[in-house]
C-alpha cells in the first residue's frame, strides 16, 4: 500500500482497515495529529486529504485516495502557514493538545470560505472540542488568519 504524507511517499504493509491516524502516529512516527476520542467526536486527529479536513481516526487507510497533509506539512517554525501565525499571535494554546486539529480545521475552512462571517466561523469550528476552553482565542485567530489570507 502506498501513502503520500506531507509530500513524501511511503510504502506500507498494514491492514487496510487501520485508521489513518494510527498509521501516521505509530507506523510513520508523525505525531502532530492527536488521538482524543477515536470516534470522530473531538477533531484532535484532523488532517487534510487533498486539502479537505478529515478525522483521521475515522478514515481507514485503505480508503485514502489523495495526498495527506498533517500539521507538520502545513507550515513550519521557519515558514508558518497564516493560520499558524495567527494562532501564535493570539497565543491560542493552553495545553495545546487540540490545537493541531483546530489549526488543520481552520486552514481547510478558510481555503473554502475566504470571507467568513462570525456565524460561519462558529459553525465550522464547533466540531473540534477544546477541553481547555480556548474558544474565544480560536475565534479571534481565525479572523486574523482570514484577513491575512485576503491580503488585508
Amino acid at each position, binding site marked *: 500500500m502506498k501513502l503520500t504524507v506531507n509530500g513524501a511517499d511511503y510504502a506500507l504493509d*498494514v*491492514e487496510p482497515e*487501520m*485508521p489513518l*491516524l*494510527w498509521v501516521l*502516529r*505509530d*507506523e510513520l*512516527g508523525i*505525531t*502532530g*495529529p*492527536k*488521538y*482524543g*476520542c*477515536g*470516534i470522530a*467526536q*473531538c477533531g*484532535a486527529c484532523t488532517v487534510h486529504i487533498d486539502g479537505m479536513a478529515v478525522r483521521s481516526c475515522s478514515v481507514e487507510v485503505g480508503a485514502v485516495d489523495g495526498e495527506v497533509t*498533517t*500539521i*507538520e506539512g*502545513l*507550515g*513550519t*517554525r521557519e515558514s*508558518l502557514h497564516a493560520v*499558524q501565525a495567527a*494562532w*501564535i499571535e493570539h*497565543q*491560542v*494554546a*493552553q*495545553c*495545546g*493538545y*487540540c*490545537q*493541531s486539529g483546530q*489549526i488543520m480545521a481552520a486552514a481547510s475552512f478558510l481555503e473554502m470560505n475566504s470571507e467568513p462571517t462570525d456565524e460561519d466561523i*462558529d*459553525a465550522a*469550528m*464547533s466540531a*473540534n*472540542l*477544546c*477541553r*481547555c*476552553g*480556548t*474558544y*474565544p*482565542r*480560536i*475565534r479571534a485567530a481565525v479572523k486574523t488568519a482570514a484577513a491575512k489570507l485576503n491580503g488585508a
Partner: protein
Amino acid sequence: MGRLKTIGRRAFLVGSTAVVGGVAFGFYLYKKPVENPLLADLGSDEAALTPYVKIDAEGVTLITPRADKGQGAYSVQAAMIAEELDVELDRIRVDPGVPSPAYWNRALADEAVPFAATDQGAMATAARGTVGAVMKIMGMQVTGGSSTVADGFEKLRIAGAVARETLKAAAAQKTGVAVASLRSQGGAVILPDGTEIPYQELAADASRIEPVTEVVLRQPEQWRLIGKPMLRVDTVAKSTGTLDYGIDAKLDGMVHAAVVLNPRQGGVLSGYDASAAKDMRGVKKIVPVTGGVGVIADNTWRAFQAAAAVECDWGPAVFAPEMADHWAELEQAFDTDPDSRGRDEGDVENTLGQTPLTSEYRAPYLAHAPLEPINAVVLIKDGRVDVWTGTQVPRFTQNNVAAIAGVEPEQVHIHAQMMGGSFGHRLEDEVARRCTELAMEMKGVPVKLTFSREQDFSHDYLRPAAIARMRGAVEGGTVKALDLAVSAPSVLTSQMAERQGMPMPGPDSSISQALWDQPYGIENYRVTAHRAQNMAPVSSWRSVGASQNAFFHEGFLSELITAAGGDQLEQRIALCTDDVSRRVLETVGEMSDWGRELGPDRGRGVAFCMSFGTPVAEVVELTNTPDGIRIDNVFVATDVGRVIDPVNFENLVQGGVVFGLGHAMNCEITISDGGIEQTNFHEYEGMRLYQCPQITVKALEHNSRIRGIGEPPVPPAAPALASAIFDATGVRLREMPFNKFVDFL
C-alpha cells in the same frame, strides 16, 4: 568530587536566612536545607547555582518543577526566575527537573489547614507553617491547588537573583572589576567598558565560590517581564504540531500497549480467555494486570483491537452498584455525625423561625477527561526503571512504580512529559502503575501504554457527587440566618489515603470547601459537612470541593436574596466582609453595567466564590431564544495580587469559565452495575465553540498575597448561569447538569 561536596553543603535556597525582601524560613524543623538535586550529575564545567538554575556550555536551563498540564506553568515559572536572572525567555531552556524534596510545595500546605484564606491571624499563620513543615519533610512535590505562582513568586525570583549575583561575583573575581560596577543583561555579565561575558563562560568559576545569598529583589517598577504580555515558551511548538506530549514519546524498540479493565471500577479480574486475541496481527503478549488484562503489540490500534477481543470474567462491583444507591448514600450521610462544622456563628436554630426557606441542591459525579488520554512509557532494564509520563505527583509515582518493579525509589527515573490537559487526572498515577506491570513482562523493552478514550472515561476517579440541604431566613430585606449542610465522599481519603497510602486523619475540609470559608457576614451562619461512604472513588477535579459547593452556596443565597426582595449584586456587596472581595464584586458590576435594561427574554445572574485564596465574581447574561438558551456574555473580575503574564492569565480565566459553564450545562457521570456509564465525548460534551459567550476579564491587584488562577474561575460559573436562567425564565435550577431541565442552543 570535592567541589560537589562543598556545594552540596550549601544547597541553600530553602531554609536560607537573611534574604532581603524575600522569605526567611526560620524556626521550624524544616530549617535543615535539602540537597540540591542538580548536583548529582553535573559535569565539571557546569554549575547548578540553586535547585532552579543550571548553566552549562549550551546555555541556561531553568528548572520548573511544577508540572505543565496546559496552564502555562513552565512559562510562568521561567519568567519569575528570568526576571531576576536577566535572561530572555526565548534564549533559555526549561526542564521540569527530577523529583526531589527541594521542590516541595508550600502554598499547597496553606490550603490544608482549617483557616480561611482571608485569615492572616497568628494562629492561622502558625498552622500553615506547621503543615508546610510536614509537607517539606515528606517532599510533597505536587502541582495543584492553583499554587504554582503562590508557591514560586518569592522562591523563584530569589533563585534568579542568587544565581545572578553569584555570576557577577565570579565575574568580579575573574576580571578584577568591582562587583558594584558590573551589570547583567541578556544572559551575560557586562563590564563597565561594555564587554559582555556570557553566563556560560562564568559557570565554572561561579561553581567554585560561595553563592551570594544576600540579595535584594527588584521592585515592581523595575520588572521587565512580570506583568507584561509574554510569549509562552510553548506557544510556537503547540502551533506547529512539534510539541511532544507523553503520548508522542518515541523510544528505540518501543512497543505499544492497551488495557481492558473491569468496567465495575476497582473490581477484580476473575478469569480471561485470550485465544481469539493472541493470534491477532502484531500482538506480542497478553498478560493480566491489576483489575484487568493488558495487551502488548506493535501498534496502538492493534493493541486496542486485541484488547477488545479478550474475553474477560469480571468480579463484582466494589461499591454501590446503581446511581440511585449513590444518592441514597448521600442522603443517609446527613444522619451521621458531622465530619466537620467549619462555621457556627450566632444562633441558627433560634433565628430560622417557624417557616424557614429550605432547598436541596445536587451535583453529579464528573470526569476529568483531559483531551490527551492518560498514558505512560516504562522501560525496565538492569535494575533501573525509566518512566516517561505527565504527572503532577512525580514523587508518589516514583515510589509506586518502585514498589511494583521491586526496586528502590532512587532507581526509578521520572521523565516528566508535557500534558494535554489534566484538570486533576494527572494527580493520579494508575497509568504509570499499570504500565510498570506490563514493562515487568517485557524487560529491556520500552512499553508505551495508552488508555483508550473509553478506558480513560470508565476508570477515571471522579469529582464527588454531592447533596446540599440548606435552610435560611430573611428579615428587613436581608439574609438573617443561613444553615448549610453538605454530604459528599472524601477526596482526601479516596485519593491520598486509599490510593497513595498517606494516612489522612481528621476531617476533610474539601467536603465543605467554599461553603464555610466565604467572606460573607451573616449574623447566624452555620456550615456542616457529612462524609458519605460506599461511593465511587473520587479525586481532585479542577477547583475540588468549590466546584460543586459554590453552586450550592451561591444558588441558595440567590434564593434568599430573591425572597428578601433584594438586588443580587448589591446584597452580596453588603454582606461581604473582605475588602479585596468587595472590590471584585463592585468591579464586575461596573464591567457589566449591572442594572441596565437587558430587553425581552434576557436575563442576568451574578455569583461569587473565594477559592484557593482568589476571589472571583462572574456575571452571566443570556437570552432565552425559541431554540434554547444562548449565553451571550460573561464578565469576570478577580484579584490574584499580581498578574505575571496578562495574556496567559486571560486565557486561563476564559478557559475556566468555559469549563465551569460547559459541565454545568450538560455533563454528568452516572453509575450502573458498579461502573461508569459514559464512554466518550458524545455522552459528555461540555461546551462547543458556537455556544461560547464573549468573556471579558478584569484582574485587580489588591490581594495582599500572590494567588493562583488555574482553578478559581470555575466555581462561580455554574451558579451565575443558574441565576441568569432564573432571571430570564423563572425556572430555579437546583441540580446539575442544567440540560435536564432547560434547553441550550
